[in-house]
């Protein structure tokens, strides 16, 4: 796998993402500054979390217009795998690679804690090391993770198997209490139609290391490495 991590002004999980990928890949991905107009030859692009442009105006709105994003969109359309985590997910929706938007959390507070996610679609190159219905533990850290899409879009997402993860309890039950931010249908992560682009609010890269308290995020990177080598 040849991987790149995009760095925007205000990205702050770029190093976390680099380390997360390195755990599975055995070497560092390329770090690409947002002002670049060309991407190196890669088959996996990660758009990391953080507060690009301070989250000002709307989260991800300004980054979506960075020079490098034109390239990311082009590669995604050619089938290159793209993962957007947290702010990266917001950027991918603003750039039009994924449908819907991420609004302010229903309780209006920033939330940082471990949550459980039910794996809805375990047949993608991102998720095939999990089993369908499995509950995994992954941290969230966001202020604007409340996924919204209109009824029609939502029906399409559900119908095409584009929902990758939902917030659930430890036993895997998708409940209102487990819906930490008010997302429609408890959605925590979605795929594009071709399933080569995944956006998710929780941070798999933060739980790939036993010293940090768990490794439930690691199978995602392992799966990608396996699929792309």
């Amino acid at each position: 796998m040849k991987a790149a991590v995009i760095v925007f002004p205000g990205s702050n999980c770029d190093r976390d993402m680099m380390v997360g990928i390195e755990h599975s890949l055995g070497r560092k991905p390329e770090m690409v500054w947002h002002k670049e107009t060309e991407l190196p030859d890669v088959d996996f692009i990660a758009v990391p979390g953080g507060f690009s442009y301070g989250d000002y105006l709307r989260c991800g709105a300004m980054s979506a217009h960075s020079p490098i994003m034109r390239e990311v969109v082009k590669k995604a359309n050619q089938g290159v795998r793209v993962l957007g985590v947290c702010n990266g997910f917001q950027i991918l929706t603003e750039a039009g690679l994924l449908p819907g938007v991420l609004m302010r959390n229903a309780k209006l507070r920033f939330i940082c804690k471990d949550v459980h996610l039910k794996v809805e679609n375990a047949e993608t190159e991102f998720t095939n090391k999990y089993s369908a219905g499995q509950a995994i533990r992954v941290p969230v850290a966001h202020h604007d993770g409340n996924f919204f899409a209109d009824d029609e879009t939502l029906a399409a997402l559900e119908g095409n198997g584009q929902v990758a993860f939902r917030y659930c309890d430890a036993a895997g039950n998708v409940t209102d209490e487990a819906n930490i931010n008010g997302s429609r249908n408890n959605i925590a992560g979605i795929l594009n139609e071709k399933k080569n682009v995944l956006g998710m609010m929780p941070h798999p890269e933060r739980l790939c290391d036993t010293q940090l308290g768990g490794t439930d995020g690691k199978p995602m990177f392992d799966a990608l490495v396996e699929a792309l080598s």
Partner: protein
Amino acid sequence: MKAKVHVTLKNGVLDPQGKAVEHALGTLGFAGVGEVRIGKYIELELTDAAEKSKENIENMCKQLLANTVIENFDVEIVE
């Protein structure tokens, strides 16, 4: 010259901030307030004649200032 832009949520889009304010006003003892919707109000100084057209500002809104999936915008040009 200035442009005044209002960005508001489309009908049917849930507004978590508006809901919270609605609720907080109730707790503070302000009765009689129905729905609250929160949008943005943006003022842009225009320095260059070429940019003063309404169409131009509308393009800025479409490209950056508003997310047209969930938001409407309204542009007014003032002296």
